[in-house]
C-alpha cells in the first residue's frame, strides 16, 4: 500500500511482540499477586465490608 517506510515482515513479527508483551504483563501481575501475603490479601478484600461506626 505504501512506500516501504515500515517493516515488511509485520505478519511474522507482530504476533511475537504481542505475545511477549502480554505475557510479560500477565507474569508481572501474577508474581505480584502471589507475593502478596495472605493476611494482607484478606485485609484488602475486606475493605468494602468494614463499615465505620454509624452515627445516628
Amino acid at each position, binding site marked *: 500500500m505504501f512506500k516501504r517506510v515500515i517493516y515488511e515482515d509485520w*505478519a511474522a513479527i507482530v504476533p511475537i511482540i504481542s505475545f511477549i508483551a502480554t505475557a510479560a504483563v500477565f507474569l508481572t501481575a501474577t508474581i505480584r*499477586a502471589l507475593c502478596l501475603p495472605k493476611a494482607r490479601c484478606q485485609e484488602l478484600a475486606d475493605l468494602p465490608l468494614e463499615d465505620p461506626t454509624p452515627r445516628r
Partner: protein
Amino acid sequence: MSNTATITYDDKSVRHFMNASIFWGIIGMIVGVLAATQLSWWQMNGKFLETITFGLVKSEGLSYITFGRIRPLHTNAVIFAFVGNMVFAGVYYSTQRLCRVRTASDLLSKIHFWGWQLIIVGAAVTLPAGLTRGKEYAELIWPLNIAVVVIWVVFGLNFFLTLARRNERSLYVSLWFYIATIVTIAMLYIVNHLSLPTSLLHSYPIFGGVQDGLVQWWYGHNAVAFFLTTPILGIMYYFIPKAADRPVYSYRLSIIHFWALVFIYIWAGPHHLLNTALPRWLQMLGMLFSVMLWAPSWAGMLNGLLTLRGAWDKLRTDPVIKFFAAAVTFYGMATFEGPLLSIRAVNALSHYTDWTVGHVHSGALGWNGFMAAGMFYWLAPRLWRTKLWSTSLANMHFWVGLVGILLYVASMWVAGIMQGLMLAQTNPDGATLKYEFVETLNSINIYYGIRSFGGFLFLTGFLMCAVNIFMTARKGRAEDETVEVTVLEKASKDRMTLSEALSSDPVVHAVLALAFMILWFLLPPHADKAALVVTILLIAKSVSAFRAGKGTWSDYFNRLLENYLPFTVLIFAAAAVGGLVQIIPSLLVNRAVNVEDRVQVPYTPLELAGRDIYVAEGCYNCHSQMIRTLVPDVLRYGPGEDQGYSRLGESIYDHPYQWGSKRTGPDLAREGGALVKDAKLMRSGKRDNLWHFNHFLDPRQMSSGSNMPAYPWLFENKTALKELPAKIAAQARLGVPWPAMTKDGIEQNARDQAMEIASSLVTAGAFLPDKPDLGPEELRRHLSETQIVALIAYVQKIGVYAPVEKPPVKNPTLDPDAHRSSSTR
C-alpha cells in the same frame, strides 16, 4: 497517633446522579425502541404522524426523528447519560466509603452533576437537528466536546482530591478501576475529538481517511472498555461483596485481572476495521489482542460470580443478587463473543451485520443495564433510609428485562448470521451473487420486529424500576449517612514521590528491557542482535536484583498501593502504550504523500457541501464506504477491472472518514463515476441523477422493499454555500489539496455544478409532488439551490480516484501483501 472524626458522606450527589441515570435511561431506551421500529417500518420516520393525527399532520418524513439522526441520539443517551450518570452515582458512593472521607468538594460535585446534565441536554437538542461530527459515539459538536472535557476534569479533580484526603491507607481494587477510567477516557476523548472548527456548530476532525478510522476505533472500542467496562467493574468489586456480604472471591485474581485488562484492552481497537484497507499489521494486532483479552475479561467475570459462593440462596429472594449475577453472566457472554467476532474469518461474516448489534446490546442491556438496576435497588433503601417499596416489582423487572434481552440478542444473532450468509451466497456458476441486498434485508424483517419487542420489554422493565425507586424515595427520607472514622495522619500515606516511584529498580529494569526488546525487532541486521543480547542481560540483571532485594520489589508494589499519584502514572502508562504503538506509526506513515496504487480525487465545493449533508443526516449509520478485501464484497460492490476492493488512498482526504460499521443498506464506495460528456463538473456513476433524486424522494419507488427513510426536507432546504469558504480553508489547513480559489470563485463553482445537475434532472423529467405547478425553468432554479442537488453531487463522486504509479518492490518477501503490491495487476 491517630484520632477519630465524625463525617457525613455526600449522598445527595449520589441520589441526583442515580435519578438522572434512570430518567435519561428511559429517554435513551424510548429513542432506541423508536429507532428499532424504524428499521421494520419505514413509516416510523415521520409518516406515522399522519396516521396518529388522522391526517392533520402531513409528513412523508420528519427530519428530527429520522433514523440517521436519532441512532446517534440513542447511543449517546445510553452510553453517556444512562451509564455515565450510573457510573458517577456508583463512584461517588463507593469512593467515599472506601476512602472513609466525604467527597473533597461539594461545589465540584454540583458543577459535575449540572454540567453533565447540561451536556446531555445539548446533545438532545443538537443531534436531532443534524449537528454532528459524523463519528460514532463522538458525534457531539465541538463546543460540547470542550464542555465534556471541562466537566471530566472537574470530576477527576474531585476524585483525586478525595483520594488525597482519604482515611484509609490502601487503595481498594475498585479505586484502581476508577483511576483507569478517569485517565484513559481523558486521553481517548481528547485525541479523537481534535477538530478544526469552521463555525460555532461545525468542525472537521484533524485526522482523515485511514488515520481517522484508526483513531476513531481506538476511541470507540475503548469507550466500551473504559466507559462501559472498567468503571462498572469497579462498581462490581464494591457492590457485589456488599450485596452478598462477603469479600471478593480472590483479591489476587483481581490484581491480575486489573493489570491485564488495562494493558490489553487499548490494543484491540483495529478489530473494528478487519478486512478493510487498514494496514495488515494493525489488523493483526487488533485481532491478537482481542483474542488475548478473553483471559482478563473472564477473570473478572469469574471473580464476580464466585464472590456469590455461599450466597446463592439469596438468588431466590434478593432481586439485587439476581441482577448482579445475570449482569456478570452477560459480561462473560459478551466478552466471549467479542474475541470470537475479532477473528478475521468470523468477522468477515459478522461485520456490517446485526450480529455486531446483538453483541453490543448483550453488553449494554445485560452487563450495563442489569448492573445499574442491581446497584439502584441496593442503593435506594440506603439513600432514603427505608425498605425497597416493592421486592416483587423488582423481581418482575428482572424477568421482563431478561426476556427482553434474550429476544433482542437472539433475534440479532439470527438476523446477522442469516444476512451475512445470504450476502455471500453465490449462484451455481460460483461467479455471481445469488441475492440482491434488499432481498436479504426483507428476509430479516421479522427479526427486526422481534428485536423491537425485546427492546420494548427492556424499557418496560426500567419503567418498573423508575416507579419502584420513586415510591421508595417517597416512602423514606433523604438523609446522608454520618459515621465515625479513624483519621489517618498525613505522614502515613502518599509518602512516595513521583521521581522515587519512576526511578525505582522494578520500573527502570522493565522500561530498559522493553526498550531494547523493541530495538531488537526494529534495528538493522547485527545491531538487532546486540539489542537482543542487552535485553537478555537486563532480564538476568533484574532477576538477580529481585533476589538480592529480599522483598523490596514486592514492597515497592505494596507502597504503590498506598501512593495514589505514582500508582495513577503507572496505570496511565499501562493503558497508553498500546495506543502509542498503533497510532504514532500510522500518523507518521499513512499519509497521502506515501500512498501507492490509488489516490482520492478531491471534492469540488458543491461535493463537499453534499458530503457535509451526508454526514449531518447520519447516512454512515446505514451505509459503509469500504469494500473489504473479500470476494463477496468485491463481487457485489466493485466487480469491474478498475474497481475491486477499497484502497487506503481512496479515502485519504476524507474528514471525517465514512467507512461505516453497519450496512442496513448497501455499500456506496463505488457509487461515483466519471465526468459526464460535455459537462464541466457534473459526474455520473453507477446510477444517473434522476435515480438518486427519486430514491431520496421515495426510496421504495426505486428499490422495492427498502426500509430507507424518505428525505422530503432535502428538496426544500437550501445548500449553505456561504459556509463553504471557511470549510475549504479548514480542509486546506488539514492537508487536503484544494486549488487556490476566492470566496466568490468557490460559490460560483458550486452554483455552476448545481445548475448542471438541476438541468440534467429537469431534462430527465424530475417531478416534485409538492410543487406540481413549477415550470421547467423555475424547477431548475429551485432545485439548483436545494440540498438534494448537493447530495447527488457528492454521491456521484464517492470513490473516484486517480491511479498512482507503483514503484518496484525490492526484495519481495513471503509476506502476501508484498506479493500483491509487486504484482502487475
